[in-house]
Each structure stands twice: as C-alpha cells, then as structure tokens.
C-alpha cells in the first residue's frame, strides 16, 4: 500500500535499455520483497514473495543524473514507475528451521522501500499484516495455474513448488547478492510459468 503521508512511486526490476530507459515489471519478485524485509528487520533469513493486485497505473519519470567524475550531466534516464500500486506479500514464517513468528507478529504498519532509485524518493510503501495462513495439507491445497510472482529456482521449494510441480517453466534471472558489493544472477521461475502451487500464488489458466 502507499504510505499515509503521500503517493508511492515504485520501479522494480529490469535492466536499463540503451543507457537511457528503465522499464518496470508488474510483479513483486522474491528478491525485491525479501531484500526490503531483510533490510527492515536486519535479518538475513526472511523470505517472501508478492504480486500487485488491481489495475496498475504506469507513468514515466525523467531523471538527469550528474556525473561527478566528469563534472558533466549524464544522459537523462527515463524510468517507468507504478503509481500507488497495491499488492499482496506472503512471508514465510515457519517451515523446518524457519521460526519468525516473534519477529513478524506486529500489527503495526511496516514502512518499506521497494525497488530502484530509492535515493530519489522512489519505492516508499506500507505493509500491513492481515492474517496468518497455516498450510496443513500441502498437496490438496495446490492448484495448477500460472505463477503470479518471480522466485529463484532454489527457493521455490520453500513456497511449495518442488521440481515435480514445475510443469512449464518461464525462466529468467534474478540478481542475488553474494556480498555487500557483489552478486550473481540466479535462474528463476518467472510469472507465467505453469506450476502446481498454493492457490494464493497461482492464477487460473486462460
């Protein structure tokens, strides 16, 4: 949700094109929301996925950066941003050695920064805990459908999508940091993959 004190402009994902244009994706990938929550709670063991709901309004914002090294203006960068999007986020609280009940039990709003260009004021949003869902019978709570989010392959199992549940993958790569200054792109399942997963993560085919 947008913060209470103003609008929210969010730009997630996508590499810059031709040095001047940064498109924005229309879902909340694992890396974005997990990274934001990890930063908020200063923990490295938080995993979450999400997606936007409802109609998305997109606008473009021009940004002229200043190159300090050359003391000259860089090419203006056009960034696609979502205006006041609303979404749903699912945070894994407990599974095997995961125990985050105490961390995430607050009913207070969580103020997060999502996506790119945070230093320019983008990405401000408000997270509100709505409910906890207990999966008692994983197999019967799964449905075949199109995945609504992006999850690294290695993490999909955490959200109930095992190798056998990936029926038709749509692969892409998501950045995963390996240190403060470095990282790699890891193979991930993108939205549109046909999987057998929990009902809240998939939508019906056709």
């Amino acid at each position: 949700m947008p913060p209470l004190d103003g609008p929210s402009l969010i730009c997630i994902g996508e590499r810059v094109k031709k040095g001047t244009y940064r498109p924005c994706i229309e879902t909340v990938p694992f890396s974005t929301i997990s990274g934001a929550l990890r930063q908020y709670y200063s923990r490295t063991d938080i995993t979450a996925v999400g997606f936007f709901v409802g109609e998305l309004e997109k606008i473009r914002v021009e940004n002229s950066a200043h190159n300090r090294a050359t003391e000259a203006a860089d090419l203006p960068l056009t960034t696609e941003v979502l205006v006041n999007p609303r979404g749903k986020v699912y945070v894994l609280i407990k599974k095997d050695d995961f125990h985050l009940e105490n961390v995430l039990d607050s009913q207070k709003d969580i103020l997060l920064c999502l996506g790119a260009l945070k230093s320019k004021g983008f990405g401000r949003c408000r997270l509100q805990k709505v409910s906890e869902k207990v999966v008692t019978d994983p197999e019967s709570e799964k449905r075949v459908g199109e995945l609504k989010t992006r999850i690294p392959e290695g993490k999909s199992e955490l959200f109930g999508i095992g190798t056998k549940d990936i029926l038709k993958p749509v692969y892409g790569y998501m950045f995963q940091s390996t240190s403060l200054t470095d990282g790699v792109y890891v193979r991930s399942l993108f939205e549109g993959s046909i999987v057998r997963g929990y009902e809240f993560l998939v939508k019906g085919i056709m």
Partner: protein
Amino acid sequence: MTLIDRQHFEPEAHDIGKLLDLQETELGRIIKVNNHVFLAPDGKPLDFRAHALNPPAETNVTWLAALLHHRPRTQSDVREKVSEEEEEYRSKAEECADLNLASDIPFEQRSTVFLMILADHLGSATSRTISGRVKRQVQLALRQKTGRTESKALNYPRQLQKLWNKSKQIGPKVSFCNKKELQSLLDYVTGDRREFLTRYEDSLKSLPEDKFPLMNLTSLYIHCELVGKIYRLMDKYVERVPEHRQLGLGGVKIGTVADAERNWPVTIVRCEIVSPHQPVRIRDFNGTRLRNEAIKSICSDPQIRDHILLNTSDTLWFLFPGNDHQKLRMDLTRFLKSFCDLGFIPQLLSFNCKLGEVENVDPALLLAHKAEELNDAAIQWQKVRNQGDGRSIGQARGRYHAISSEISRMFPAHIGSDSSVRHQSEIEPPICEICQMAPGEEQTYREEETQVVDYLCRSCLFIRNSGERFRKLAAWGQDNVKVAWIRVLLDKRQMEDRVAELYSLHADEIFKHRTEMADEVKRQFRNLGLLADFVKDYFDFVRNFASEVFSLYGGTSDDSASHRANVELLDEEFLELFVLRIQQPGVVAGILRTFVNLHQSAESGFPDCVGNSPVKLRISISRPKYPFFEHWNFLKNNEGFLKLQVPGSVYLRLDQAEYDTLLTCEIERSVAGSLLHRLLAIESRTHSRLLVRAELAPQPGEPQMLKEFKHRLLRMDSTSALPIEKVLSYAKILDL
C-alpha cells in the same frame, strides 16, 4: 507395392472426383450426383470404357485411392439409413477399410488406401465427425427453412462458405463437366507428374471440402493439403504386417479403420516460438526476420514439413503419430534446433489422444480443462480427508495423481536447454540487456554521438549484426518528417475462440428450433481445417493491406515495395510490420480507413468477425529517431482492434463501432480543435455528459461549419456515449 509406386502415389489427389461438375451436365448424366468416387447413377462403379473414357490402370495407387477411399453406403448400414435409390456398391472399398476381409487387391495397395482413409478422416474439418443422423436433420431443417422441395433442399447451398466472410461468393470454378475434361483428369492421374495442388489450385480453392450444408466451410485445397501431409506421416510411422493382414502403430496392431480410430495414438504439439529478446534498437528486430526464415525453412524441409499441420508467424502445430515420448523429444529437438540456436525459446504444449478423438487441435484448451479437473480433484480429496473415510481418500488421491501426471505429460521437456548457454543456473554480471538470459559482453557504439555502451550476449549480438541496416529510416532522421510504424497482427487465442464461436452461431442458425441437434453438432466441432483456412486468409489480407497502403502512400517505385521511397520494410516477406514516411496530412486517417474497409470487405476481409476480430491494427507515429523499443512496447500489445499512438500526445484505442461513430462526425480539424478541448475540460472536471451537451447548444453568431459540427456531435452523443477524449485524439491524427 514397390518403392517407386509409393513415390508416385499422390494422396492429395484422392478427392479428384470432387472437381467434377455433375449438376445438369454431360458428366451428371453418366455419374451419380453427390458422389466423388466415380459411381454410375445406379450406385455401381462407373464403366469408363462404355463411355469411351480411358481410366488409369488398376495398379495406379492414386487412382485406387480416389475410387476406394469412401466406404459405400448400403441399406444394411443402420447408422446412415440409406434409401434404396441412394444405395451404393463398391465392395473393394469395403475391403480396403477392413483388412480382415478377403480381397484380390495386393496388401500393400490395400494398406495404402487404408491409411488414406484415416488421413482423409483426420484431415477433414467437420464432415467426417458429423453423423448421418445429424445430416438428415440438417436436410430437414433446411427444407423447413427454405420451403423448397426435397431434391432442391438437398442441394442448398453447395458452394464454399467462409464462416468469417459469409457474404463472399466463392466459386465454384469448375471446368470439368464433359467427358473430354474428365479424360484430362484421368490422364493426369495416369501420368507421372505429381503437382495436383499447384495444377488445380484455383479450382481447389473455390470448392468446399464437403458440399453438404454445415460442412462446406473449408476449402478443398486445405483439405487435400492436410490429407497429403497426414498420409505421408502415417505411411512413415505405421508398421505393415502383411502376414497377419494388420497394421501397427505405437505397438497397437489393428485390421479395420474403426479399430485404428479407436486405438491408435497420436500426439499433437503446439509450439510457440517465444522471443526472450526485448528489442532495444531497430536492428534487434532482425530476430523476427530470422525467425520467419527459420519457420519457412522447416516448413519446406521434406523431413519436417509433413509434421506441420499449420503455422502462423510464431506458432507451429505439429502432428506425431504414436506416443513414443523419447522419439518425440528427439524429433522436436532436431526440428527446433534452428530456433534454439538463435536464442528463441520453443514453448511446447502437447497432448495424446486416439486418432478418432482429435476434436480440437488446440492443446491449450485441453490444458485449461485438465487444470480445472485437477482443481476439482484436489477439493474432493480434501473433502474426503476431512470426513476420514480411508477408502475414499485412496480413490480421491489416485484420481488427483492420475490427472496431475496427465498434465505433466502435456509439457515435453524443455527443448534446447541442455546444451545451450542459456538457462545455466548462475550468470556472473553483466547479463545481456536484451534477452537477460545469458552473460553479456560490452559493446560500444562509437558511430553514435552519445557512445552508448550495451552489454549483449553472443546470440543477441548476432541478431543485431545480421542483415542490412535500415538506411532509409536513418536518412529520414535527418529530415523534419514523421514516420508511422504500422503493424497488423493476428491474435491466435482470439482466432481460435472466434472460429469456434462462429461455427456455433452457424449451427444455431441452421438448427433454429432444434437446440439439442445444434449442441450435438457443436460438440463434434473440429477446428483444424478452419484455422488453417483462417491463417491463409489472414496472410492474404496482410498482403492486400500492405500493397494498398504502399500504392496510396508509399511513393514512387520501380519495382518492389522495398524500393518505394516512403516505405522501410524490416523484411521483404514480413509485411505485418513496416515503417511509412508521412509526407502529407491525412495519411494516418487514410491507413485506418484502408484497414477497416479491407477488413469489412466481402472480397478479402473478415466482415463476420466485426466486433470481435482477431485481426488488428497498431500505428505508432513519431520522429524517425524516436526509440524503437517504445514503439515495440506499443505495437506488440494484443488488446484492442485499432490502436494508435503519438507518444506524448495521442493514445487512441477504438473498436469498430467507435470508429464508425467517429466517421459519422465528419470531424474538420480546423473547426473542431478548440471546441473539443473545451468539451474535454468540461467532461474531465464535471464528469457530466449533460454539461457537455449544454456546451454543444448552438450560439448566435457562430460560423455555420461550427454549428453543423456541433449538431453532428450532439447526434453522436445521443446514439453512443463516445468519450470526448477519443474524439479529440481522432481529430489530432487527422493532421498526420
């Protein structure tokens, strides 16, 4: 049958008898009307010699197939309920459809005709799926509808009818109505040349596959082409067992056509060639050209082409007899290698069924049904678990897993991922900026003023560097002109839905008062032939549209379209997307008009799709140097019939009715501009249509032209509530 015989066999010519005109002609007196297997009026085989005709030899398999590919209708046939005068005799046809029967025809020839019969059934659009009972009901319904006598009602209407263009008068262009012309056909079969489809193309395209009402919806050409492909595939895959008078496929040996249709497995694969590339520069669009070339190449490869039932510019429908998954995977890997090498991702969806159950060529539909079934099974499983009945739990679990594995089988393993650099589990930065699926390497473009650096993988770089540069577009960039990126596109999902919908409406029209009969006909719907016909018509439409636009606005030319001064083609043969230099006002409105008129035309359009057409137009207008990816983001979108943008100024989305309404307004830009801006301000501030109407009231002293325009707008407002924003956007493009 020897190898030479098989090479000379031309399955496409099996329906050569359908080329004959038997309605009150010389041939109609010696050949039974409403049959195409050369029966005399008494239903017995025609005695050619008695009529001074010289038929091909009995050993000519093409001729045998033409004579014997239909089972004769007899009075003992309960299903067909044939009257005495309709009874037909050709025992040899029965022997070819049932290999268990004794026969003096060599087994090789019988088995060839046997496979021919199967291919004929599979390649038919709807006719073989419609039972004799339904046919009788159709006759009855038509008799009631037309009030004609029985014999005339039976002949109504016999010409080819396109579901999406019912008003088009098609053929029949048949010139085979006397003995001399029949002899020329017989001589063709006797001869060595195998060019049935090209030699008789005009006639085949103007005749329906089946003249019976409700089944006269696909052309004979499409049917013969499909039957030829399917026969050759069956011939390749089927094992002949002469000692047991049996044929085998996928380990299932049978002796009759009915058994083959009940038991032989086939696999249908829908393959969408997806591009991971997000074109950034116009040269990245070379990928589309390379994909078209690859599609053309596999469609003409003798080893592969028969597997391809139909194709669009990015989707292929394959048929594989049998259900050997290992072989299927190997074949698909081989067929699709050229796409994988270019970095495309073939997205495959397949399903197995029995030969006689191929009712719909679209596995996506089946997948949706299966997913629904699986979800139901999951709910059922949970329900019985809560009830705690052990036996029911086992059954529910079993059902769930059975459907689940059925769905898993629909997705052949990801082709091309094993050896490719793509899809490796990790990539060190930087990643390719275009496909984002492989490591990128630094590419600096020094020829550009800004010296932009891109990071590209090898495959994307190869695509960018292959082909010519777009020099005309670059030259236009130096001038103060605007260009229009024009794209015609076919929404495949909508095409499939629309064709099914049109068929359903057609059945309702014929069975107005017999809904149960209409429902039966709809259930038996098969879309293969219709889709193939639709795709062919679409490409004809694209060619006609492009050539009309080129002749109107393309500038002078010596020969081909690519030499026209105002046209930049991205690919000589890919006319779905091109760039047009705008040199005078009114070009964009003219292009819209050309598209809509052509789309509605009975000659080459889709008038019966109006309102929900899968054929769409996109126009994006800018200066030549405007970033290509901005255009592409707009052009690739499937939603909406007509869409047009001038970035930063106009965004217009119209359906057919809205476009027609706009035309009735007869907007004059010089008169409309300030009024429309004022109306838009009122509408957006007040959200009141009433205040807009009040503003349209004529004022004393206004110029006559403005008064008339206001009157037209008022009239429009009373018939349709078209947003003022759309009217203003349309007015803006009139200057372009």
